[in-house]
């Protein structure tokens, strides 16, 4: 059995734009879920509103498509009502960081046994390219036409500070690593948060000089800095460039978790 069996073949092809990275993240997540050996009856996918949150509609399990930003609140309810279920949350940066920020930090604090896959395309893609809390400084969007002047959110540091058990960040270029990270997240009891940076050719790339999809993927590849290398650079006192972001497993610890069956 391969992960292709988890797709609703009657709903494909999906409505994502050509070159959108969300499909890649769904592939990686489903490959990880499939390698866990779970059945479709005991797995639930929950999502909020946005491009990324259309993902559970293409998956052949029970799913919840909830209100904007409240995916984690609904997922908490599902997990508390039936701890036997394996709950995976698909969410985007606008869903998780902007309107659902409070739900996010409290889900991290409670350390509920969920796996959250955040597809961070650094913009509000579905509504027309407005700037989101994770739009990098200087990037253009329809609400920041002279370049974003604000410092973006670092969602991984937020999750670590709020108390998540497992935090990792990868991009849509690192498919195998992302699959392994999601698998570790599914195995970890407690809150596991995997941030996946994806390309958005329609809303983000068009305004930010990534006219081709491959250019944006190349940017993600070149500007990702492995955590081990970051630590080594810090040890040697080297300067870390401003536009690099750290990828890899950032946090792994064993705080007491909620919703785990004894």
């Amino acid at each position, binding site marked *: 059995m391969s992960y292709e069996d988890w*797709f609703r073949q009657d709903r*494909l*092809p999906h409505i994502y734009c050509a*070159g959108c990275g969300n*499909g*890649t993240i769904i592939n990686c997540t489903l490959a990880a879920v499939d390698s866990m050996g779970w059945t479709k009856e005991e797995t639930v996918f929950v999502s909020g509103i946005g491009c990324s949150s259309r993902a559970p509609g293409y998956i052949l399990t029970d799913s919840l498509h909830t209100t904007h930003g409240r995916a984690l609140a609904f997922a908490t309810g599902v997990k508390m009502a039936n701890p036997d279920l394996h709950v995976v949350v698909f969410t985007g940066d606008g869903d998780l960081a902007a309107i659902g920020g409070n739900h996010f930090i409290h889900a991290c604090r409670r350390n509920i046994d969920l796996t959250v896959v955040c597809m961070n395309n650094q913009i509000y893609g579905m509504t027309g390219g407005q700037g989101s809390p994770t739009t990098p400084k200087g990037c253009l969007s329809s609400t920041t036409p002279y370049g974003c002047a604000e410092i973006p959110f670092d969602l991984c540091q937020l999750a670590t500070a709020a108390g998540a058990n497992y935090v990792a960040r990868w991009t849509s270029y690192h*498919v195998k690593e992302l699959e392994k990270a999601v698998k570790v997240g599914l195995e970890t009891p407690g809150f596991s948060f995997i941030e996946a940076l994806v390309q958005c050719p329609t809303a983000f790339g068009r305004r930010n000089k990534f006219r081709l*999809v*491959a250019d944006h993927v190349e940017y993600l590849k070149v500007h990702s800095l492995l955590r081990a290398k970051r630590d080594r650079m810090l040890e040697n006192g080297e300067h870390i460039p401003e536009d690099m972001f750290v990828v890899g497993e950032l946090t792994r610890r064993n705080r007491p978790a909620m919703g785990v069956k004894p």
Partner: protein
Amino acid sequence: MKLAIDETRCKGCNLCTKVCPYKIFREGKRPNRRGIVVPELDRPERCTNCRLRNLYGRQLCGVCQLTCPDQAIHWTEEEPYEPHKVAIEY
């Protein structure tokens, strides 16, 4: 195993041409009926998964399938090889 691109799903983003270590996918030349330029396969029998999947009994490489955002790349089982008797007439 045989590599195949599902033309009804492909949206022509050409990400597969970037990730294959053997450069099996090449940018297509002409649009199909839906106006999408689907990549073409350059000697797909070189693919690792095509050659060794049945020998190892597990998925090998498979980066193109994981990367494809439209789930358009898949492998199909081939008919086992059957030697044919060739009668040579002089």
